[in-house]
């Protein structure tokens, strides 16, 4: 049942030998050791597992890995440049201390990166709207909105 599949993750080609129906999330975390994306619901309801598919933020917990092989995938680990310099969204989350437990942070950073890519100057309402798919239980939402706003001006 296992198949050799080539994935393009964070600018690199990876060969994995997996059941092609395995959701991408498990392959990223367990086969490639990329644990930035988290398991939250397995239902595409909470955003914890978001990655960039060809630049668009979407959950990875239901997407079969064979389907993902056709796209360029970027995970949280792939946002910093080759010298380790953080993406401005990552930096803004640090500057605003926009985290408590941080479990949802992966999805929030990924969704915000995609948002700013599409709309470099979003209003607060647009930020809130675009993060609608992400669940946060510690209540850091207000800080997250501030962080994205800040990143949009840097």
């Amino acid at each position, binding site marked *: *049942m296992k198949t050799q599949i080539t994935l393009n993750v964070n600018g690199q080609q990876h060969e994995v030998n*997996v*059941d092609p129906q*395995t*959701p991408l999330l*498990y392959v990223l*975390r*367990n086969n490639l*050791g*990329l*644990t*930035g*994306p*988290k*398991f*939250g*619901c*397995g*239902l595409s*309801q*909470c955003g*914890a597992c978001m990655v960039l598919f060809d630049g668009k933020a979407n959950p990875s917990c239901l997407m079969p890995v064979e389907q993902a092989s056709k796209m360029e995938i970027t*995970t*949280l*680990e792939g946002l*910093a440049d080759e010298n380790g310099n*953080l993406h401005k969204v*990552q*930096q803004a*989350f*640090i500057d605003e*201390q*926009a*985290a*408590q*437990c*941080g*479990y*949802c*942070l*992966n999805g929030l*950073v990924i969704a915000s990166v995609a948002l700013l890519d599409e709309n470099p100057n979003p209003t607060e309402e647009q*930020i*809130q*709207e675009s*993060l*609608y*798919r*992400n*669940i*946060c*239980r*510690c*209540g*850091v*939402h*207000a*800080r*997250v*909105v501030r962080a994205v706003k800040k990143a949009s001006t840097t």
Partner: protein
Amino acid sequence: MKTTRRTFIKQMGYVSIGFSLLGPVCLGKEGTYPNANIMEPEDPDHINAWLRVLEDGRVLILTGKMELGQGIRIAVAQVAAEELNTRLDLVDVNLAETGVTANEGYTAGSRSIESSAMSIRHAAAAAREKILKMASQKWDRPSSELILEDGMISGGDQKMSLYELLEGKQIEEDIGEPAEIFGKTKRKIVGQPVPRKDIPAMVRGELEYVQDLKFPDMVHARIIRPKSYTSKLGSLEESGLQDFPGFLKLVRLGSFVGVIAEEEYQAIKLSWEVQDRATWEAGEELPADVPLKDYLRTLPEETETEEDKGDWKNAFEKAPVKHSAAYYKPYLMHAANGPSCAVAYYNDDKLQVWTHSQGVYPLRETLANLLEIPEDAIHVKGVPGSGCYGHNGADDVAAEAALLAVEFPGRHVRLQWMRDEEHLWEPYGTAMVMELQAGLSKEGKIVGWKYDFWSDGHSSRPNGEPRTFLPARFLDRGHGVPGPGFKGGAVRNSMPYYTIDNLQTTSHIFRGPLRRSALRALGAFANVFAIESFMDELADKAGKDPVDFRIEHLDDERAITCLRKIKRNTTEVNLGEREGIGYAFARYKNSASYFAVAAHVYVNDEEIVRVKKMWGVIDSGETINPDGLKNQTEGGMIQAASWALREEVQFDKDHVTSRDWHLYPIFRFQEIPEVDVEVIDRVEEDPLGAGEAAQGPSAAAVVNAVFSATGKRVRDLPVNPVEKYLR
């Protein structure tokens, strides 16, 4: 013992290089912990129970508390760095771990700063004084001429590292009473909004959560859940399961069923297959046909007068104005973003567990009783998980992973719950009913007060009894279901903080239909919600401003200051059509942080209430990290507003039905109010627990704002039940 300690310290010195303290990489290639069964923590009266000097010059702080997202790591690092006059990057923190850190019980009740951080402060101050004394003797110089800074001690032309001075030993003396606490006198690091060290790792995806642990040859497990709390496994056809990809083992212990597979997704698919094959005998029915609020009042109860002052009845009867009201709070879910997870490893009669439990020692004791393994053969290491501020499935999943690991020795077993397991099986914050009566004098003062509240116990944390673990009830060994739990949680904040001469409060403790345990603030959430709603109603009856009315019933200046500030911070607010502002106040536990709050709401055409903005003023005495305190308070306000507006666990006759984020909606980004928190820092005071202070007042402020907007009182939570959205 000496040899063991030294070996241990050497290992700690080794493991704390880089950011790997939390990681399994430090535990050796086989993932085993050296000397797990012979290590005991130091006496907590001794300095080295809290603080170790490492070979590379850094200091390792040992806290018995867990990082839950509240920022305890940075807070304890700050207090230690201040006393040792050292840079923060030279201070590392080891979170709760059996045999390593002091046994500080649970990370709960907003006690981590009051207890752990203060123990660490005193230990570090005592360490500084001992170090200066040692150097003074060694160099024959008065200690007033010596300087301790950044792990180096110097005086005149002499200079050496702490590690050299101590010759590799640790400071074993008693903490005693240090002569000076720099945190009170110098305050260079404490009281500053120092950024957390874990957030940079989080944004890079490098912070290791318990969900992220990986060990060589680790296997994955999933549990097959019964139909209800009490149903038993009927039949299960096992034949052919071994042919499924990755199948390693089916574990059946009575009605507790789990599968173990090589890969995670294989374990998930196997669990679906086993679920399809299993039949379950029906258990007891849940009371799904009666409104829960009414049902709870029909349950057998333990009634106790908690407070009886003056003659409330007589005062009430004579009062010219009388008022009464009843309130209801449903079951609430912890609903962590990441489902509970644990890793367990059993080999050579020893068990190791990696867990996001809030109490590693109580978990160890309870595991020992469940598994009949001696406590000293169990090592439990705390590793942060997904936050929720309460006792969710963390301990249950640890017990389940341990049960499976014992059945499958020699390889690390990782078990993470699926979303529906977390939603359907965690122990919820209990439903409560609250009834209030009060009389007002003609001057508008409260003259008689009666409060009755109905509640389940609030905590079923592991306490040594195996039945506190979810899987225990399904084992054949007959552990039964947990006992009444922590009644004190129900009573919390049931006494109003106001000056009322004649009052009586009575608790009515029942055993409710759903599993329940500690959720942030415990009973204080519902008690304060009810009392502060009622205060608002009384102010209205008395024709008084709700903030002034509260101030007239307070004699604690710190409480009054919070209320005056919240009023001042909201004077400029302009209210539009169908908008209102509401206020509330409480002192958490009547002994911890003071918190006043205002909420600005509007009610849309579909009668759905939205919160536009919330303001908070918090006085937690001496503030260790003002940004950490703000973050906690903002989060508490948002979480409490979500509880009040949106949340309610629902069930049918079989089991809970709120199985996912659609059926148990919590606030999403578009619903989030703007938040503004002012911190009152009182350096001269003791620091007070703060993490739960916002919960009750925030909910009350929201419903009081609804009254201000519409003239209608909301007394049953949630304000916007799911059905409203379906109309």
